[in-house]
């Protein structure tokens, strides 16, 4: 199986790891957002959704393990890429201008990624059923409690914008990396990146505001 390691350690191999795990996260974001949208049905609907989710049992554990693995791979590979890419140009340009390719999103991927990682930690610490006791308070009450603290609210909202930027480059980039660049579909995928990034930022960003409004 050394060929597997060899393949994954090439530049394209590493990119595939980023892309495939990234696509998983995108899928996760979509389902997570869709599920959380239940908040628009009111607090009880939201709680019911959370209970349904937890009722999945082993399936949920499997999904959590998968996401954790994906996260580790995504982050470790990103660290390697970051340092390799820095080393590839030891002397910097005195003047460095864009030809119109790179975007704010593409240039800040390592940094937005790092911030999103930080957010995930905070998010898990404040919401995960592994960490936060959900037997005395339901998830709606927990959310109200968390978002009532201005610091958390601001962290959450800013993080969602940062996540939006990460997704904006990540989505089309993942398609390009797995080789899905087709003259008919790529323009759509590129637009989808932006649309999805906005949906993620606004969709998730609206949640605490709705929750606070329902309080």
């Amino acid at each position, binding site marked *: 199986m050394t*060929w597997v390691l*060899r*393949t994954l350690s*090439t*530049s*394209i*191999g*590493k*990119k*595939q790891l980023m892309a495939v795990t990234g696509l998983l996260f995108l899928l996760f974001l979509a389902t997570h957002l869709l599920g959380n949208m239940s908040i628009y049905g009111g607090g009880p609907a939201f709680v019911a959704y959370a209970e349904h989710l937890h009722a999945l049992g082993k399936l949920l554990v499997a999904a959590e393990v998968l996401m954790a693995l994906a996260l580790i791979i995504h982050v470790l590979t990103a660290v390697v*890429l970051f340092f*390799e*890419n820095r*080393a*590839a*140009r*030891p*002397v*910097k*340009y*005195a*003047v*460095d*201008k*864009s*030809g*119109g*390719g*790179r975007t704010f999103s*593409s*240039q800040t*991927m390592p940094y937005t990624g790092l911030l999103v990682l930080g957010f995930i930690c905070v998010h898990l610490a404040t919401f995960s059923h592994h960490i936060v006791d959900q037997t005395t308070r339901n998830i709606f009450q927990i959310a109200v409690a968390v978002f009532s603290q201005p610091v958390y609210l601001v962290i959450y909202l800013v993080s969602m914008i940062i996540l939006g930027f990460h997704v904006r*480059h990540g989505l*089309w*980039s993942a398609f*390009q*990396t*797995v*080789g*899905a*660049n*087709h*003259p008919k579909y*790529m323009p759509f995928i590129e637009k989808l990146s932006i649309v999805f990034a906005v949906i993620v930022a606004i969709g998730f960003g609206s949640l605490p505001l709705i929750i606070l409004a329902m309080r």
Partner: protein
Amino acid sequence: MSSKSINLTLKVWRQQGPKAPGRLETYKAENISTDASFLEMLDIVNERLTLEGKEPIAFDHDCREGICGMCGSVVNGRPHGPQKETTLCQLHMRHFQDGDTVYIEPFRARALPVVKDLVVDRSALDQIIAAGGFISVNTGQAPEANSLPVPKDKADLAMDAAACIGCGACIAACPNAAAMLFTSAKISQLALLPHGRPEAAKRALAMLAQMDAAGFGNCTNHKECEMECPKGISISNIARLNREFLKAALASAEEIPAATKKE
């Protein structure tokens, strides 16, 4: 064509040799006709330096019609300067304003070390081609030319990719100094043609391994390469390389070979 003269201040990277430290030196470029090309402007500056007993600025150039791929520097932060799909030799001074300050730096990447001033060593690119950028046909072996039809759209795409002049601007432009556009252009050209299919898997693995060994960065899809490529080569070629590589690595019996180290 209406020509006038302009004066510029140049900030040029001077470096005596690969190991020597380099620095930006300031020169005046005076009375430059706007019809002159960028390299002709450098010629004029060099003539003057020579007459002043100084060493002229070393820069690579040959055909001066945008096809040999020999010229190229980073001008005001842009490889081959500010014009789209234009090599430095085809960039004309009419795109500059009187009084401009112009920064001229060599292509910068660990894998393309500076030889002198603006001249860089691009032999890493030759090595990538040597690793597999060919179809293994000996002289005399070929069948009749029309025996294998090639769909016109495929031939056109292959030609789009084959237009690469190997100048290295994609690497210079890439924030990661990656050589993916260069490598993918050759892999795409040969993968698109039926003649290149028999070796496609072997080629993709070998060229990629060689590219990795040369110390280029990794592609993170900034698209700067496509934007700065003087021949407008598309990053859809990089996607094709990604596909070809995946197919070769996962579905073929070929192994990724060891790369040759630079002498």
